[in-house]
């Protein structure tokens, strides 16, 4: 009895701590009451979901006693490849629809994926804004060193679209290999500005200052999630999808900077 109380208190604390500022929306996926699955739920997710999914996993485990959520974060393309190669996984969430489609085409998902979040690019500048950037067009000013992702990475593909759409032709100082490298160049104050995801701008905290990009349809990534056909725990997989697409999941994702689907 005492043990159970302690466990309950512990999970409550964990839930409160990790759900950020809590918000009473505890109505998460804990629906099924009889014949619950236990064991390990394997979730594969795009690297940009690291913070939000890690937080949601604690909630999920609290709501599902006896369940251990194992999260693996990587680039969406790598994860999709792993799934089609038969890697043991229950749920997949990718950072764009094209990647998910390759899994759907290989009959790797249970039904159609659900779009649960969007992400867009944002300009970030160092806190003291050495180049005096106030709007997106300022990155084209002479002498401004801005950095982007290399155009083979998803964030770089999006950057090309945004730059095209806004008619900016000034060349970047560097094409970094991934979005975290772009962020760190700005955090270190080596670059005057960088194009990162809105979620990275949030993750950068007070080490960067966001500058809005005139948003257009060109500037949007949509994140689909799907339970996988090879899932060992199909019910838990569906519960996870419900959690992410439900109000609690949406709250955590919004706090991390994601947009509504």
């Amino acid at each position, binding site marked *: 009895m005492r043990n159970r109380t302690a466990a309950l208190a512990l999970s409550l604390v964990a839930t409160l701590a990790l759900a950020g500022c809590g918000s009473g929306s505890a109505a998460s996926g804990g629906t099924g009451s009889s014949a619950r699955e236990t064991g390990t739920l394997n979730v594969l997710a795009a690297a940009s979901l690291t913070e939000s999914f890690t937080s949601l996993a604690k909630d999920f485990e609290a709501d599902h006693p006896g369940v251990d959520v194992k999260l693996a974060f990587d680039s969406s393309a790598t994860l999709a490849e792993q799934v089609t190669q038969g890697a043991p996984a229950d749920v997949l969430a990718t950072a764009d629809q094209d990647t998910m489609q390759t899994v759907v085409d290989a009959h790797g998902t249970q039904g159609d994926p659900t779009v649960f979040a969007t992400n867009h690019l944002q300009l970030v500048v160092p806190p003291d804004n050495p180049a005096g950037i106030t709007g997106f067009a300022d990155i084209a000013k002479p002498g401004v*060193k801005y*950095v982007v992702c*290399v155009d*083979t*990475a998803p964030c770089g593909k999006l950057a090309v679209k945004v730059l095209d759409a806004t008619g900016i032709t000034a*060349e*970047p*100082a*560097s*094409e*970094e*290999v991934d979005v975290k*490298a772009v962020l760190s*160049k700005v955090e*270190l*104050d*080596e*670059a005057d500005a960088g194009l990162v995801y809105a979620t990275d701008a949030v993750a950068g905290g007070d080490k960067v200052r966001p500058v809005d990009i005139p948003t257009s349809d060109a500037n949007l990534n949509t994140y689909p999630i799907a339970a996988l056909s090879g899932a060992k725990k199909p019910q838990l997989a569906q519960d996870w999808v419900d959690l992410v697409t439900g109000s609690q999941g949406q709250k955590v994702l919004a706090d991390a900077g994601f947009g509504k689907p």
Partner: protein
Amino acid sequence: MSGRGPALGRAPARLLGPAAVAAVFLGLPLVALLARTPWTDFLSRLTDPAVLDALRLSLVTSLAAIALVSVVGVPLAWTLARVDFPGRSLVRALVIVPLVLPPVVGGVALLSAFGRRGLVGGPLYDATGISIPFTTVAVVVAHAFVALPFFVLSVEGALRAADREYDVVAATLGASRWTTFRRVGLPLAGPGLLAGLVLGWARALGEFGATITFAGNYPGTTRTMPSAIYVALQSDQDAALVLSVILMVVSVAILALLRERWFDQAVQGAVRT
């Protein structure tokens, strides 16, 4: 060498076996790389302006780096080999650190030192407006940082191996320490010096982590061959294979050339003296 075989008996299988495994382990990935390379469009990819840009940049920066390294590296190696001073073991440890440092960490360390907000880079930027990251100079700095240890260790080893008695004799004949260094020590260390140059240069040519972290990655200014290979690997495997083979061929060709032209002469020269 071969004449010694019979006198010592047969080479034991328990040594030859593992030796063969090691040799195959080193050779197999290279052979596999060649086997997977799409040779049909090799030439067209080789003459791709982006590839030529990366190749040119890699050659220029690695050679500039090794030139820089030899200018400061020889004096450092000589000092370590010939001068007793307090803190010598500390300095030698400093020389070794970049060898064992993960290259990315080296890049972050370089940023901390020479970045726009760095220990040295900060005052430089405030005074002159010059910022080193994202420039070709930064690539040379990153290359020099990783190549210097190879060079210094190689030269120091050669200077130590050259008998100090020669220095003493030169001194008794009235040669100044500078003349002794120039006319006696340095020529004796010739082979080690060349080996250091080649090793350091090869290390610079292959440098990736410190370069991409400190200098960035932009075609023509900072995208060296290894960075180009990394970028290609994310989208176009065939292109990455071709680039890898080009880099491998260039390294091996120059090593072979140096061996033919200089190494043997230098070694023979050293043996004759």
